[in-house]
């Protein structure tokens, strides 16, 4: 191995090593600072304490934000999974051109900037006096979650060997029994993963939520954003740490359901 090659090799390792550290640093930083004892947010923390967790859970605004986040994320997960499962199943029975058109329609919102989607929805919904409700945030988040649940379910249905269902019916199982005992167990991991992904999308999103939320319907990221605009509060560290934990739990569920490589490839 020549000297230049060795130098390149070391530069390469330094490069991807630094990128790796920068990628995972935010999680480490917010979790570490959430246990900081001081009122000034510093990293690394000097003294450890759980006082900011106590403070977080005794404040009405943050408790409401946690509740709002859980409601919108669960709502988005359920709603976008139902749409995704039904759509991915139905699209198999359409001719190619219709199926391509529908796939395009479903995927396009993912490429529209959140600010513009947020503005469009805010103007449209305020015409009917529907802004500042939690379900409007669910609808907005579902615009970004359904393309993902739809893709995951299409891949799941494509992997399923549909002959198995026919075989079960040939062996005497009724349509319902074949559905319940053959199709469902085979595609359930995909459904669980799709729901987890929908949950995570909603949990993280805050630009559309920022436009659509009212005082009562702020989610944790929206509340964090509004707080951060004023000051670096340790309570934002706690909120962020909770978001990280919730996302990791959801990712863990998705990864156990379908394997980490598929999560990486399909989202």
């Amino acid at each position, binding site marked *: 191995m020549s000297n230049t090659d060795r130098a390149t090799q070391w530069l390469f390792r330094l490069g991807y090593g630094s990128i790796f550290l920068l990628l995972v640093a935010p999680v480490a930083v917010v979790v570490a600072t959430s246990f900081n004892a001081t009122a000034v947010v510093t990293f690394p923390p000097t003294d450890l304490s759980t006082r900011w967790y106590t403070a977080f859970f005794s404040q009405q605004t943050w408790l409401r934000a946690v509740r709002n986040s859980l409601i919108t994320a669960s709502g988005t997960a359920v709603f976008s999974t139902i749409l*995704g499962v039904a759509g991915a199943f139905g699209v198999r029975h359409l001719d190619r051109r219709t199926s391509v058109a529908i796939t395009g329609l479903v995927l396009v919102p993912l490429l529209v900037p959140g600010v513009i989607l947020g503005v469009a929805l805010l103007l449209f919904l305020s015409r009917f006096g529907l802004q500042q409700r939690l379900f409007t945030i669910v609808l907005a988040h579902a615009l970004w979650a359904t393309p993902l649940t739809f893709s995951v379910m299409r891949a799941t249905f494509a992997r399923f060997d549909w002959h198995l269902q026919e075989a079960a019916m040939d062996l005497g199982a009724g349509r319902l029994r074949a559905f319940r005992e053959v199709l469902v167990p085979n595609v359930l991991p995909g459904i669980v993963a799709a729901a987890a992904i929908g949950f995570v999308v909603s949990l993280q999103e805050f630009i559309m939520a920022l436009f659509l939320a009212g005082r009562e319907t702020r989610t944790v990221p929206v509340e964090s954003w509004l707080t951060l605009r004023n000051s670096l509060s340790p309570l934002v560290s706690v909120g962020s740490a909770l978001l990280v934990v919730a996302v990791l739990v959801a990712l863990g569920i998705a990864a156990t359901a379908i394997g980490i490589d598929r999560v990486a490839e399909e989202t």
Partner: protein
Amino acid sequence: MSVTTGSLRARFRRTDRRALLVAPIVLFDLAVFVVPFGYLLRISLTERTSRGAFVEGSWSIAGFEYVLSTPTLVDSIIFTLGFATGVTALSLGISLLYAYAIWRATGGLRVLLLVGVLVSMLTAIIVKLFAVILLFSPSGFINQAIVASGIVAEPLSLINNVTGAVIGQLYIVVPYSVLAIYSVLSSIDQSVIEAARDLGAGRLQAVAAVVVPHTIPGLIVAGVISFTWSVGSFAAPLLVGSSAERTTGIAISDLLQQNFDWTAAAAMGLLVAAIVFVALSVTYVALGRTNGGDDE
């Protein structure tokens, strides 16, 4: 014969009924995406007014005229295009290097690097931006480390300026960009590199001559993601940039919520959406070309 026709017809009907399951998702996207966008277009074509948000029922192109004739708004569009181009270039460089590292790594290291990118992708944007402040501010960890190591005497100003906005935006797009490139790389046989090196190519040369050309579809997708999301960037320039980094997203939000000028806000939103659409179409055509090239 009639039996066949009958069963065919029954089959056709059954097929049709199952296809109806696409109805909910189509209705949803029509009601929550297409119709609100139509409404945005309608508002962008109303007369502007200082009393209220827009003049109901009127027709005018004053909103577009206003946006295109107001220097601060035009500057904002130009700045955003430059910002998005810069972020895209940096994102492609960083992501190609990292995706290549994942691809070349084996066993535990490969899983670790993959987990790193997934963790970042799944970290909420607000968490990443908060961490950028804590890490890159003058009193932050990274600046302290650089000063302590003696490379520079004074902390560098890495946030509350364009550098901060770029760092923040990179945190948002890089994970997706890495995965787009990696998904293409993972389908290439690693032995192409050994072959190139056996034939006398240096390490960098082998990568440039053999890997990059195969990765072009992934690079294009990564570029589209980085560019379209940066054209719509809002949070990163607002929180870790300064007032000089006024992207179109920030300008639209101000028009809507401070000036209460819905017509102009809608017009500007549609202009930005149009830019994104043009960028996507160009890329789609380019992607079709490269794929066509591969087929031949």
